[in-house]
């Protein structure tokens, strides 16, 4: 079997082809939104959001009797938006540090999710599915929904690029320019929430954070402008999805884990080899 054959073979299966499409779309959307997660230091928030989605997933799963993925999707989206706004409210009202508020919401929501799923017999199987994702189980309908919502997220990030940048870099400047800072911050949280839910099936709750921060961070090591970071991050995201699916197919590894491992691999290479900032480069110039 030659190389071209090796590369084409996995995608002869329709479920693999659908998986590839899903991983590609998610690979673009997550690093673009993730650029702000990285630059604003919101990694913990992103992780919390992914975990906080679980009760929504559980309710969607239970109310549709384990059938409708569509219902799981909308419940998860509602929960994610609620959680992202809830974290901000807890931090403000309780005069707590934001990471404390995030921790409380994360753990509480995650526990609620596990409690709900545990009411179903044989829950361990379902739980694993939600925790680690199943990109190979993506349906045509899922793809359409991912494309629509992912496209919406990208369109908003592009349209409000200037505003999100000011609000993220210098909140005081944004305030003196009389931009509605809280509106833009809230909108950004919602965009992150949508990206999380759209990606849920690809890598699952537990590994979601990797898609948000790893490809964007890899790009951060290599370029020095925000738009370049988004584009290159999306490149790493797509490549991680593609290579990850090959690894999953040929090595028999869980697809979500394979995608994240490949993304991490790219990051490690960049960490050592990035021009000027990489560890190798510094060693040589010393």
């Amino acid at each position, binding site marked *: 079997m030659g190389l071209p054959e090796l590369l084409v073979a996995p995608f002869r299966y329709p479920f693999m082809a659908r998986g590839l499409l899903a991983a590609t779309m998610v690979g673009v959307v997550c690093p673009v939104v993730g650029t702000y997660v990285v630059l604003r230091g919101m990694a913990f928030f992103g992780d919390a959001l992914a975990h906080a989605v679980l009760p929504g997933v559980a309710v969607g799963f239970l109310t549709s009797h384990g059938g409708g993925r569509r219902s799981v999707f909308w419940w998860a989206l509602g929960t994610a938006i609620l959680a992202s706004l809830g974290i901000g409210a807890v931090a403000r009202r309780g005069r707590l540090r934001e990471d404390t508020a995030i921790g409380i919401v994360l753990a509480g929501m995650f526990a609620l999710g596990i409690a709900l799923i545990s009411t179903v017999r044989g829950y361990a199987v379902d739980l694993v599915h939600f925790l680690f994702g199943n990109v190979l189980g993506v349906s045509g309908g899922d793809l359409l929904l991912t494309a629509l919502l992912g496209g919406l997220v990208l369109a908003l990030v592009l349209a409000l690029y200037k*505003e999100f940048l000011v609000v993220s*870099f*210098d909140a005081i400047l944004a305030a003196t320019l*009389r*931009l509605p800072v809280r509106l833009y911050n809230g909108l950004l949280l919602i965009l992150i929430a949508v990206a999380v839910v759209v990606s849920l099936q690809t890598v699952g709750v537990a590994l979601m954070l990797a898609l948000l921060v790893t490809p964007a961070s890899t790009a951060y090591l290599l370029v020095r*402008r925000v738009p370049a970071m988004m584009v290159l991050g999306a490149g790493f995201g797509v490549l991680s999805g593609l290579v990850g699916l090959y690894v999953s197919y040929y090595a028999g590894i869980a697809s979500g884990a394979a995608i994240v491992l490949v993304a991490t691999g790219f990051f490690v290479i960049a960490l050592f080899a990035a021009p000027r900032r990489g560890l190798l480069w510094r060693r040589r110039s010393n």
Partner: protein
Amino acid sequence: MSASKRAAGDTACPSGRGPIWTRVRRKPLEAHVAGTPALEVDGLTVHYGGRLALEGIHFELEEGAELGVVGPNGAGKSTLLKAIAGIAAPSAGEVRVYGHVPSGHICIAYLPQRSEVDWRFPLSVEDVVMMGRSARLGPLRRPGPRDRSLVRGTLDLVELAPLARRSIGELSGGEQQRMFIARALAQEADLVLLDEPLAGLDLRSQEGILTLLSALPQRGITLLVALHDLGIAADRFGKVLLLKKSQLGFGPPAEVFRAEALKEAYGASLRMVRAEEGLFVVSDAPCDKETCDGTP
């Protein structure tokens, strides 16, 4: 010069250009009321995090005035600047900029302390200066030729044009401060508030910033500069405000910097010597906390 802020002929802050959907704001922006002072602060009291930060501040500045704001750490210098910028709400009294509350203006520039900025952000000098344009552009609009020429002009003025594409993390302290001044000019600000612009800079960079600032009033810009160096305030500013939560003095430095007032503001950390030429102030501490560890 293309950077001349009067080039466009719009003396009032707000700009109402562009189609209606780009003009959506929560509140309409105020035009300047002719004949009013650039800044009036009237009985201003501010609580910050539940604690009293400023009390009964009262002064007025004409257009083109330069005010040095001095006082010990925690005297409320930053809070005063934030209240004037319209981003900290007064609990009593009021601030009027050209006759209106500051929150209706986009012509107030607040330059943060350098230690408050995330210098790892992947931005070029040009990107940061262009941020000053974003309010005038409004949502959904991209910078046009006028915005770009204004940004180039202001970078020329602060002598950063050769570094326009440099990453902000690679700038020296003085260059970082000049970049923020360029941003205030790009914003077409009429009132510029600087929070400790000289902190952590070497003497040559300090001199460069002071020279640059002294050129602003002739453009009709009113300056408020929070400082910790009483000598610079006395030598370089027409008026000073001595703060320690309340106002201990406002006016020309020679009138404000008197032994009693300084002692009240700084307490035991100041030693004073009377000499032939006037009052000499000698500080016990080689630097105050702000300048030592760079954190506010």
